[in-house]
């Protein structure tokens, strides 16, 4: 007999898988703790309540939320089409969807800047909304970075639900729109929520594309990640770390809260 059999083997197995998880988590916690050790709490408090950082917190929360809402609004129909509709060139579109994930955000920001200096882009800027170096640019940059991820995640939710419920709903008199709103979306809400959470997390930490498209102007386009960058740019490591910790605390508590609320009330 082999040691991996039986209850003993089961314990080894559990220990092995759990320890991989715990090793990983400890590594993350270790990094955070080593940052906490770096700064004094006085300095932390004074940074936290500075006008600049309060502005950055608000701006981050607002822009990330708007970017996620837009991603979800465009992402739901797009993911639905990708999941439930058959059309020519689907695998090509599937691959194009990887573009924003593959291109690093700074490059993506640069591409957006260039796009807005083309005739089409400057047309949009002049007659529609201005994006370059202003707050809508932050939202656009976050949207571009996170939307593809959001679509991918929502696609797998729709894949899991399948078309059976809709088919039956239609025999009961629903048209496609009603079937989507009355059946598929309510059924998908947990998955969509999870996708939204992950997307929001990614958006709130977005830096590269934001800084390139919207610039790093204090008190104007300064989100928390840009505040981190600006602190590092003046070699103020302590402030940078304080802002990193603020970012962590704010987003982790928001995420935990969303999960808890969602977990209790929303489950199917």
């Amino acid at each position, binding site marked *: 007999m082999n040691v991996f059999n039986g209850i003993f083997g089961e314990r080894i197995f559990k220990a092995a898988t759990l320890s991989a998880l715990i090793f990983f988590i400890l590594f993350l916690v270790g990094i955070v703790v080593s940052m906490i050790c770096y700064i004094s709490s006085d300095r932390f408090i004074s940074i936290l309540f500075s006008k600049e950082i309060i502005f950055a917190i608000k701006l981050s929360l607002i822009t990330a939320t708007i970017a996620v809402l837009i991603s979800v609004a465009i992402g739901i129909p797009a993911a639905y089409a990708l999941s439930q509709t058959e059309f020519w060139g689907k695998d090509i579109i599937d691959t194009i969807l990887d573009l924003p994930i593959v291109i690093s955000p700074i490059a993506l920001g640069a591409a957006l800047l260039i796009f807005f200096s083309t005739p089409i882009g400057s047309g949009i800027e002049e007659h529609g909304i201005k994006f370059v170096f202003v707050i809508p640019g932050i939202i656009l940059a976050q949207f571009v970075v996170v939307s593809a991820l959001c679509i991918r995640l929502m696609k797998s939710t729709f894949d899991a639900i399948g078309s059976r419920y809709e088919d*039956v709903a*239609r*025999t*009961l*008199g*629903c*048209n496609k729109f*009603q079937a989507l709103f*009355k059946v598929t979306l309510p*059924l998908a809400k947990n998955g969509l929520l999870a996708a939204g959470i992950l997307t929001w997390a990614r958006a709130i930490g977005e830096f590269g594309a934001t800084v390139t498209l919207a610039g790093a102007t204090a008190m104007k386009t300064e989100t928390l990640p840009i505040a981190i960058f600006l602190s590092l740019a003046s070699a103020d490591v302590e402030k940078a770390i304080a802002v990193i910790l603020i970012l962590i605390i704010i987003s982790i508590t928001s995420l935990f809260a969303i999960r808890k609320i969602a977990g209790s009330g929303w489950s199917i």
Partner: protein
Amino acid sequence: MIKIHDLDVDVGEFHLRDINIEIKKGEYFVILGPTGSGKTVLVECMAGIHNPCKGEIWFNDGNVTLLTPEERETGYVPQDYVLFPHLNALENIQFGLKIKNHSKKEIEKRVGEVTNRLNIKNILYRQNPKTLSGGEKQRVALARALIIKPRLLILDEPLSALDPRTHEELQRELKRIHKEIKTTTIHVTHDFEEAISLGDRIAVMNNGKIIQIGTPDEIFRKPKTESVAKFVGAENLFKGKVIYSDNGKGISRIRIHGMDTNIFSLTEKVGAVYVSIHPEDIVLSEAVCKCYNDKNILKGKIVNIMDKGSLVRIIVDVSIPLTVLLTRRAYLETELKKGSEIYVIFKAMNVHVF
């Protein structure tokens, strides 16, 4: 009422071919076939869920082939019920009416009617339909379909996967409901008993084709092909050859393939045939009794006795194995044992030849 004309449907690797069906208004029409024969695909095609690649479907003189499901007004009760898991039982039932913006009063009235009829008042507020038992789920799905007053009611294996007690109850209920509301109904099943006791007519499917349509009696007493016979459970089924055909009297003698057993029948067929004798048409007797020339009397030995609850199945070897059915009561009175010598007797008119 419903006319299906030369329908071909492809789903993935599976094909329905040459489907022709006519269903009369108010008829209870059963589709019978083994697992995987395409019954569900066919009814879903009527409901508008699958699109045919050839052929037409007509409802009441209207061609619905190109209509979407919501335009067909069928009430579909799927095999797996497909209750909406985000709604409670009541909301599931109201679904179709709410979609059509019926008034609150109207909805309440119809819900009252249908829940009364189906006797499900007590489970309406159960939050998660997954916790309903199989029978309850089935009733909710049925109520959900009935409430929209469909032109055609489609029931896909509504009784399978229920324990026999619930099965029987619901079967009785279906019969009663159909009598009351008289909606044209299509009922899919793979159970003969269900088909016989519910169906006005039965279509037998196999491998994506309809192989016979007829009344229950036609299907079970006169299967057109071997595969129908085999499927509908013609137990004593043998290959044979007509060796003597007396056309005048209508009596012919059939030699069972590879044996020297002869069986009399009333067929006018010649050449190679199939023969089947229903087990309940065979009488067991301890002695040869007074016999007419249209009777088959064969001597044999009991090789097996199987207790099947209220019925006892006895296999008698008369050079070919014949299955005979007795009620348990009859069996207990006879003192039959394995190995007993016995005569089997059946009328020539009960020998089915095809």
